């Protein structure tokens, strides 16, 4: 043992903190680290596979284990805004996202870094859409490379924990935001044995307090604070007001960016010390990059993330054959550790860089491009290695040891192509014969049954609708085929069928992301027998407005036959939260289409996180019930009223418990949308799985929601409100607790301890219903 080693040993003995064994996933450990840090605020929006981080924090919060304010934004863009504001106000801030959520928030990230607000965001990496894929690859995180964020990449759950702690410390030292990325599912969901500090205080001591210039604790040295190293200025500092976010052009921007560059270089300098310090505390060695059997390797495989370990098994197998194979990986993508990487590669003759994404047209994914660039700077003297590139493992495709061996073998071939995809399939030949159609397309005649008839009464200024009897409506051909994967008793297909029974003639459908979309279009099958388009759920209404307008444009130019189509946009699962702006914009522009919302009261497609339409008090996976929390803390969103403010010609609420009324309103909405402008329909849609009630009883649950006036049935036709079903006058009105008691998600509210909550809910429902009645009585309201 050298003297240095002996010193090191003593230090380890002295400073290593007590740790405990946990059996957790990457997501669970990210949440656990956040809980130990006790951030001020987490602004987030649920998206698979990162959602569990917020869910776990909410569970811990309900049990009183931390005091982080968890703010479920209405979309990732807003979540990033919440984080930015909270960090500008001197707080410690946390976020977690994936895939299109990351991209939706993308414009905010350079704002965060350019104005030098530290925070930590976890990225559980997932394939970006479209076609929509929920599984893992690195196509999302690579969009972060140019944002000015430090990017740490964890290849196992343990490092997710470690990087979450070290990352915050680094962020605050160099005043840059830090992204902690890791493989979605492989790392985010796989449970492993790991170590965490036993005492939260150890974590807080390690990171140290965040000193804000406005804090009473720091006011004594507030003067130095404005420039002090460890003290942050804040927009809450009234004594030392600052302006954040100047309007800045040349020649200043380049200097601002140069400062950011210097901060990144500072991070590069500080990281080795931070790694060493963390090793002292934890006993775990962290580094910029790592290699396994890399020193004397002639063929090196580069992989990022969890594949690193799989490749080690391949290396061992190849070494047994006498092949000098090795594997390398990166833990820090920004700042890019070119020097350390060159050291790892110094003896390699061939490096095969396997990217879990592609920078299409560039001849490799981003890691290929960066490694090629880094090795350009190789000191002269050694021959430059041959660098091959393979794109692999997209869309969550598993990476077996055999795959890693196959990649090595490709790299060993003299004739190997510089760039290719690994793992693609050409498909069965002669596809035409093997894939017959099951149905003929539905003709306009077949779907024009006269089940409903709408006539616009010019004098009254109203649409008169007749028909809609259920016994006739059975004759409408199903535009959606059976065999979809909705849960037994699901309300979504029920509502869609009722809606479509009321719409005569041609239809074109657009679904936003949600249960309704996921269960109908799992490739290679589709339930739709009529034209269908999907777009992400912040943008469905706008997308369909584009379809509508090109239809009219092309008809006008004689490129498309005469005739009518009813255009129908279907939203649900919180689509009217994140997609509200798009829906309002579409309504204000007045495109001739229907916006239909099936409101299942939660983000059911991702495992029931709260939506703004979730009833107050309801349990969800981001509004747990525990000693410190009773469920969702605010009232359900009144979307029809928001839509009413756009003054579109027709708005109505519909319920399967009043099926003929539903069909007639659908017919009216279709007639209005074809002739006048945008129509909006909203159905309350049962979700047996997450409402936690019995599938066969769902119609009565919906009926109770209507009868307790939680979901009143009415329409607003050209500004005139009409109650189409009044439980009061029919003597059917019930207290809201009757409805809440029918569902497992709200049953707890009937306990005595929650009486004040149910009273509040009842009062709000009564108030909203009274307003509605007043409007129905007075045409001007």
């Amino acid at each position: 043992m050298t003297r240095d080693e002996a010193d090191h040993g003593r230090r380890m003995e002295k400073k290593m903190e007590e740790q405990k064994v946990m059996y957790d996933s990457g997501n669970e450990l990210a949440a656990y680290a956040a809980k130990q840090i006790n951030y001020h605020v987490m602004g987030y929006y649920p998206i698979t596979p990162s959602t569990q981080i917020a869910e776990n924090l909410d569970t811990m919060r309900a049990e009183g284990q931390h005091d982080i304010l968890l703010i479920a934004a209405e979309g990732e863009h807003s979540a990033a805004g919440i984080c930015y504001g909270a960090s500008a106000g001197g707080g410690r801030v946390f976020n977690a996202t994936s895939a299109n959520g990351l991209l939706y928030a993308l414009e905010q990230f350079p704002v965060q870094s350019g104005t030098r607000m530290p925070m930590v965001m976890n990225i559980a990496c997932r394939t970006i859409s479209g076609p929509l894929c929920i599984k893992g690859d690195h196509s999302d995180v690579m969009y972060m490379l140019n944002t000015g964020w430090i990017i740490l990449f964890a290849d196992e759950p343990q490092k997710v924990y470690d990087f979450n702690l070290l990352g915050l410390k680094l962020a605050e030292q160099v005043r840059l935001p830090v992204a902690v990325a890791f493989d979605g599912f492989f790392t985010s969901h796989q449970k492993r044995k790991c170590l965490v500090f036993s005492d939260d205080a150890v974590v807080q001591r390690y990171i140290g307090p965040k000193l804000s210039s406005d804090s009473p604790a720091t006011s004594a040295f507030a003067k130095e604070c404005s420039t002090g190293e460890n003290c942050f200025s804040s927009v809450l500092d009234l004594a030392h007001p600052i302006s954040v976010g100047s309007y800045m052009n040349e020649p200043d921007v380049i200097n601002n960016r140069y400062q950011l560059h210097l901060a990144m270089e500072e991070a590069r300098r500080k990281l080795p010390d931070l790694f060493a310090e963390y090793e002292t505390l934890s006993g775990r060695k962290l580094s910029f990059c790592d290699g396994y059997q890399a020193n004397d390797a002639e063929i090196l495989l580069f992989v990022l993330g969890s594949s690193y370990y799989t490749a080690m098994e391949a290396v061992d197998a190849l070494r047994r054959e006498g092949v000098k194979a090795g594997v390398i990986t990166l833990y820090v993508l920004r700042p890019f550790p070119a020097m350390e990487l060159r050291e790892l590669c110094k003896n390699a003759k061939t490096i095969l860089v396997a990217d879990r994404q592609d920078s299409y047209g560039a001849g490799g994914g981003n890691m290929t491009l960066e490694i090629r660039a880094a090795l350009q700077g190789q000191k002269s003297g050694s021959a430059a290695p041959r660098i091959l590139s393979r794109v692999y493992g997209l869309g969550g495709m598993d990476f077996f040891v055999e795959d890693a061996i196959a990649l090595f073998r490709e790299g060993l071939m003299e004739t190997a192509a510089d760039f290719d995809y690994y793992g693609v399939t050409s498909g069965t030949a002669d596809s035409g014969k093997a894939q017959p159609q099951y149905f003929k397309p539905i003709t306009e005649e077949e779907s024009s049954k006269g089940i409903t008839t709408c006539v616009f009464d010019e004098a009254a200024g109203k649409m008169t609708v007749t028909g809609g009897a259920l016994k006739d409506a059975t004759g409408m051909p199903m535009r959606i085929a059976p065999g979809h994967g909705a849960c037994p008793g699901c309300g979504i297909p029920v509502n869609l069928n009722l809606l479509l029974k009321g719409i005569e003639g041609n239809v074109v459908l657009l679904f936003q992301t949600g249960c309704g979309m996921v269960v109908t279009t799992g490739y290679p099958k589709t339930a739709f027998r009529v034209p269908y388009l999907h777009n992400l759920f912040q943008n469905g209404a706008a997308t369909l407005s584009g379809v509508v307008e090109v239809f009219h444009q092309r008809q006008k130019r004689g490129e498309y036959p005469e005739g009518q189509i009813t255009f129908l946009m279907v939203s649900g699962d919180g689509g009217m939260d994140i997609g509200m702006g798009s829906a309002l914009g579409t309504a204000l522009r007045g495109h001739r289409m229907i916006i239909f919302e099936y409101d299942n009261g939660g983000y059911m497609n991702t495992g029931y996180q709260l939506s703004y339409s979730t009833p107050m008090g309801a349990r969800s996976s981001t509004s747990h019930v525990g000693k410190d929390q009773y469920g969702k803390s605010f009232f359900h969103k009144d979307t029809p009223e928001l839509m009413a403010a756009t003054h579109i010609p027709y708005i109505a609420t519909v319920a399967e418990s009043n099926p003929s009324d539903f069909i007639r309103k659908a017919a009216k909405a279709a007639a209005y949308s074809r002739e006048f402008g945008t129509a909006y329909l909203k159905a309350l849609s049962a979700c047996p799985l997450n409402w936690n009630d019995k599938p066969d009883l769902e119609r009565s649950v919906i009926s109770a929601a209507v009868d307790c006036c939680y979901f009143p049935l009415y329409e607003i036709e050209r500004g005139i409100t009409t109650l189409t079903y009044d439980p009061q006058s029919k003597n059917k009105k019930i207290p809201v607790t009757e409805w809440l008691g029918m569902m497992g998600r709200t049953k707890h509210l009937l306990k005595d301890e929650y009486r004040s909550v149910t009273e509040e809910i009842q009062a709000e429902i009564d108030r909203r219903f009274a307003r509605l009645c007043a409007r129905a009585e007075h045409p001007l309201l």
Partner: protein
Amino acid sequence: MNEKTTLPVVNEHGYFEIRLESIGGLGANLCGKMLGELGALLLSLNSLSFSSYGSEKRGSPVKAYIRWCENEKPLRVNSPVTHPHILALFHEGLIGTYPVLDGVSVDTKIILNTPLSPEDAAEKHHITMGELYCLDALAIAMECKSRINMVMLGAIAKASGFISLDDAKQICRDSIGKKYPALIDANLTGVELGYTRLAKAAAERNVEPLPEGGREQFVWGYDNAPIGGVNPRIGSTVSNNLSPSREGYIPLFLPEKCINCGLCDSTCPDMVFQFAPGIYKGKECMVNHGVDYYHCKGCLRCVEVCPTNALVTALEKDYPEKPHFVPNRHLLPDAITYQETGANSWITSDSYLDEKRVNGGVV
């Protein structure tokens, strides 16, 4: 915590591997998580566990994987288990439909949830490879008011030969006891009965190669798939047979009582009622010709709304030939090959929420 567990057998990379095959709702995810914890926290092993990732929807086939090695050895493989040392089949119906027996070798211990004896089960399902163990986990779970996954946990412990009943019960207490103290006794009984009632086939080992499991014959690839992920096969979900979603009950149609009001059609999420023009009480109208049981998930919404009891709840096993079974009447005449799939249905949220936290979600 045990001193040290010696794994009886490991693969070429040094791992002992377990695969659970199930359909959503039977609790395989939770069982896998508990086995992972058991390895890490009670057996002093290095341990990893995960489930097949996918939709929150009930019923698609679910797999859970557990991989163990000595505590000092790093766990370097995170891909699914292809050659399990223990294969637990939670749902008998998966055999033949899905390739759930893939990777079985002569040393694989197969644990099958079935009312059949090991000998009968081996013959029925052509299980000609590995060491077969059977138990009626559903009956046991019902008997002791536990769940299938707890019974299977006990069975897996027993078959493994190195997991003690005490450890299996301990992990049950650790996982479920804290959250649901009221359910713990029933579940401990479930684990114990799974452990004690597991029956082993008389033959020491089966050694004949297994027949190929069911697989998609046709594959879309970059050469033949329409660009952009476009799907031109309208209504193609119709080829899914969702019968496995049902939980033992069907709506039974009694046409003589039917007044063709259409309420059933208005509440059915699965478009199963085959209305077509016909004559009712001497008048031309839409008439209900029957039920498309290929797509009925057994939710029984229709029974609840039928005003004349023309639709009633019946035990599926009492009607092997379902009366008035009418396939979708709009199908083109070409032969359709149904693919069994689908939701194993809702289960109560208490149990489900647990499941879900393990499984993650979509989108």
